């Protein structure tokens, strides 16, 4: 039983619940962010090594690189999460700008009401 993984999956489920049940564009965006954060938590925690240190060479480990390599945590998921966070920001910005536009011009944040306008 790995608690980190389970909590990450619960966050993802929470985000999915929010996406399926909420009727407000801002809440939908929050749901999407929560879901992506759950995935990031999963990615980060699977690279953990018990008693690990940050994958940055500083201080005394500069002279003892093999020791550093045997103690540091996985750097690859951190790079992936960095990429994924930026992508998530972009999606959030896109969704927010469309929502702001919808609110300014159609006066509502309820997607089904915008739909009724278009029919």
């Amino acid at each position: 039983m790995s608690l980190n993984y389970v909590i990450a999956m619960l966050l993802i489920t929470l985000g999915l619940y929010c996406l399926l049940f909420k009727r407000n564009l801002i809440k939908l965006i929050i749901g999407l962010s929560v879901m992506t954060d759950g995935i990031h938590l999963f990615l980060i925690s699977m690279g953990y090594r018990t008693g690990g240190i940050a994958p940055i060479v500083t201080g005394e480990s500069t002279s003892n690189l093999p020791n550093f390599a045997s103690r540091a945590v996985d750097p690859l998921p951190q790079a992936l999460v960095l990429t994924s966070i930026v992508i998530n920001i972009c999606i959030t910005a896109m969704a927010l700008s469309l929502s702001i536009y919808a609110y300014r011009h159609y006066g509502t944040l309820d997607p089904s009401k915008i739909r009724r306008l278009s029919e």
Partner: protein
Amino acid sequence: MIPQAPILAIVVPLFSAFLMPMIGLLSKRYNIDRACDWFAVAAMVGTLIVVASMAPTVWGGQIIVYKFGDWSPPWGINLAIDALSIQMALMIAGLGTLVMVYSVAYMQRDSRRDLFYTLALLVITGMMGTILTGDIFNFYVFLEIMSVASYALIAFRRDSSGIEAGLKYLFIGSLGTSFVLLSIAMLYSFVGSLNIADLGAKLAIYRGAAQPVPTILVASLALFVTGIMIKVAMVPFHIWLPDAFTAAPTAVSALLAGPAAVVGIYWVARLPYLPFGLPVGIILVSLGLLSMIVGVLMALTQRDFKRMLAYHVISQKGYMVLGIGLGTLGSVLGAQGGLFHLLNHSIYKSMLFMCAGAVLYRTGSQKFEELGGLGKNMPLTALTFLIGSLAISGIPPLNGFVSKYTIYLGGIEAGLPIVTIIAVLVSALTFASFFKAFSSVFLGQRPKHLRDIQEAPKLMLFPMLAMAVVCIVIGLFPALGFNVVGPAQAAAENSAGYIGHVIGGI
């Protein structure tokens, strides 16, 4: 092959997109009206030349591997181009060029054209990246480029239906890409690698029945298939597609219906062999059948030109997924038919959307009730629409017939004649639906206000007629198509060769 061709195929549209806002500023300052439009067309032509220059090498049996920054495959990112990728890349570049030419005329009444072409080139970049890459996380990144750009393009006109469709596609599409990301995360946590060839090599032990497949691999596969199916719009996940294709500007609909369909189907075709290599044939066949039937039944009741075409997109994508699914059940013809149908469908569905766009451009309406008798005013548009609808219904001398017939044979070869029967029935319903559309738009009573409608502009007609000619040529000489599709299908199945080329290093 042009030196550095693999990276140029991605970098040419990408850097053109980076340059486009600057071109927009300059053209405003010096008052050159169509600079952005022609620059986009030139960028697409450049991409097409680069991609075409790679084709002879790849069809010669080689797999081009391009290592970024000179890091060898399991650590760095690499591009791996085999016959399957090159078919898709050629389709994207070719159809993309024609769609760009079409939008030069179609978008001329809109302002903010520099942003439109930037986004369109970014969609092309994203598609090229997803097709050519050999790294699964890189696939996710480029999938997002393509997705974010298409969310913006769908809402481009900013009317209420466009905003609503854009937001709907944004939420459903992001859900799909999140699933893909979670699937990649699980795969990495299990195998400890991200390179597709490396993953394929390490997961090969699960291919036989010797090892029980662990839960995490099943979960990863399920999430990946769900994510891809949301992007392909197979039936339980299809609800974003009709709204998006109806509300988007027609040039965008043509771009998404033709080239963008390629990405999803490419990954459906890869999936049974690399990186997972688990049997998914039955799932693909049943999803394909479901979408074929539901798509065509929904299409029959539509009263909106573009919405009807959108439902036919779902139905026809069902044929492709069905064909590829039959391929994994042991029928080579089925897989070839699926890939061939992708080629044909991309051509005639882009063309049909362009016809709808031409009608919309001249009359300002896309409702069947408000149209009629346009055959006299727009004879060439009517002719291309007729060719397209005969092709999509699978009437003999046209290309749709060849690929559909191959899929029917594949159904029999795989020992599932019931599939063939359903496919023939769906074809008949497709014909009925298009007959209705053709007669209510181009035949019959012409409303008074449509008396002075003119033929579509020449720049719109050129890509439509070019595609119609291709439809007829492939229909008359199907060997041309099979020369492209045969190697592609062989390359998809040849996972050992792919792994050998990438990991073995060249």
